[in-house]
């Protein structure tokens, strides 16, 4: 029986609530995300739990729908980043030689520019649509996953069982997916949590700058952008996304910490 520490359990629970909310958004949000249902910037009431926004839309509904977009985009970008990054990273480690050199130098090239700046440069010529955003974010982030995956895989490729598989004459596909992947999974999964949070922050930042999700759709960053003018009048609508993002970030971090600790203790390390 696996013992889950209370902090990780709390993290899992809250994360599950967020994902559940994202999936069930059409059923649990009290109003439609783009329907004008009240006055301008009404305070919180029984009908509108978080009040209404600058053009009379229900903030709670927009938060739930916004959560759906934020989480969906972040998940898709994380998956893209992981599949690309880890396959390329493993390939570099297994193949070695010029393949490794070429891939590693290419990643150095992309990482020489901060990723937000690079994303802005690319988005200045690309149309800003959801698939483009996911592609840009995922591929830029894949460079970080590549470095981790390559580092982990380089340690594994020198193991005896990999050598044995090579001597048996197994192909690269077998070595990568049957020998390396299962052994590299735990550090990668722990990293996945952190990359997911990074993606949430990334898409929120882009949307806040007006270069992410376009109105009338809005993710959490977009909700801040729409409601920022209210802040000067003491209307807190723009601050709710902060609460959502911080809660999600902290709970995913708790889970990732636990996974990381579990793997180090499995390997006889000093994990708690």
């Amino acid at each position, binding site marked *: 029986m696996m013992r889950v520490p209370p902090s990780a359990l709390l993290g899992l629970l809250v994360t599950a609530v967020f994902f559940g909310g994202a999936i069930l958004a059409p059923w649990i949000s009290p109003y439609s995300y783009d329907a004008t249902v009240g006055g301008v910037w009404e305070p919180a009431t029984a009908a509108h739990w978080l009040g209404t926004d600058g053009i009379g839309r229900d903030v709670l509904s927009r938060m739930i729908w916004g959560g759906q977009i934020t989480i969906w985009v972040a998940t898709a970008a994380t998956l893209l980043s992981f599949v690309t990054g880890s396959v390329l990273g493993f390939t570099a480690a297994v193949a070695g030689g010029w393949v490794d050199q070429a891939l590693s130098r290419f990643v150095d090239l992309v990482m020489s*520019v901060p990723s937000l*700046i690079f994303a*802005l*440069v690319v988005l200045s*010529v690309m149309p800003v649509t959801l698939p483009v955003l996911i592609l840009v974010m995922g591929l830029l982030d894949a460079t970080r996953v590549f470095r981790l995956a390559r580092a982990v895989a380089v340690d594994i490729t020198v193991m005896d069982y990999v050598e044995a598989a090579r001597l048996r004459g197994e192909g690269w596909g077998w070595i990568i997916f049957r020998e390396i992947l299962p052994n590299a999974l735990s550090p990668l999964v722990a990293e996945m949590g952190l990359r997911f949070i990074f993606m949430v922050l990334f898409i*929120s930042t882009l949307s806040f*700058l007006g270069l992410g999700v376009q109105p009338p759709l809005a993710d959490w960053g977009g909700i801040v952008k729409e409601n920022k003018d209210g802040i*000067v009048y*003491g209307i807190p609508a723009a601050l709710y996304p902060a609460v959502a993002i911080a809660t999600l970030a902290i709970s995913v971090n708790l889970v990732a910490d636990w996974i990381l600790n579990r793997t180090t203790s499995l390997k006889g390390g000093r994990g708690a």
Partner: protein
Amino acid sequence: MHPLLKMVVQRVALGCLLLIAASVAIFAGTEVLPGDVAASVLGQSATPQALANLRAEMGLDEPATTRYFAWLLGALHGDLGTALSNKQDIAAAMGQRLGNTLFLASCAAAIAVPLSILLGLIAVRYRGRWPDRLISGVTLATVSVPEFLLGYIVIFALAVKYRLFPSVATIYAGMSLGEKLQVIALPVIVLVLVVLGHMMRMTRAAILNVMQSPYIETAELKGLRPFAIIARHAFPNAIAPVVNVVMINLAYLVVGVVVVEVVFVYPGMGQYLVDHVAKRDVPVVQACGLVFAAVYIGFNLLADILSILANPRLRHPR
């Protein structure tokens, strides 16, 4: 040649190479789409004549490599081209803004660096007890919130509720230093919060790492007080990693500035960049990207060199 000098020269050469790589990446980043820049600048309703004019103006009939080298050579001579949207010289428009951005960033750094090292030391001294937990908890919260939200929380608390500082950081040439500092107080607070968490955590980890060395145990056994051990034995040996941490976070600060400037409507590089991304003004975006990349690579290079210089083992080679 002294081996230390050789290492430094190597790093500088590597930094230059990386900067050239960054310029390639930025230039290529605007060439990735199937059509060309002119089509995406003008949108779908563009007439063929307008497209042809813009292509001629931007020199798009030339092959990409020719344009890249022309652009790079110009940038090396301080000529960053002209903006598409208002035909202004980019280098001239950028000068003042770059100064503003560096002013903002260096004010933030002047507060964040000593503060985070001090907090790191305190956290190590009281490791596992409430001061450590409090510092770690607060910094975990600040790194979990994106910069722009931190900005609005600070505005909400300090500019709207208590009216301590203005919520918009308008800065212009004729202001005295005192006025400027008053105006940029809020963005500085946000930037400090943004980097403080990372910097403090990494400082704490670096010093804790040193604390596990045998000579620290010796110092403990000879009866030194905990703070004396940290200040006299642990910290000097942790300088190299800490310097590295500081520089990496300063590089990060340069990126954080982009968002914070937009929040506070501060006339700096970040706002210039974001405005022109929305206008699809590609030459400006490329120029800004290059400047940001140069600063970023510069700080990373400085981190490398300083940590070589701060490492006693490398300073006194046998």
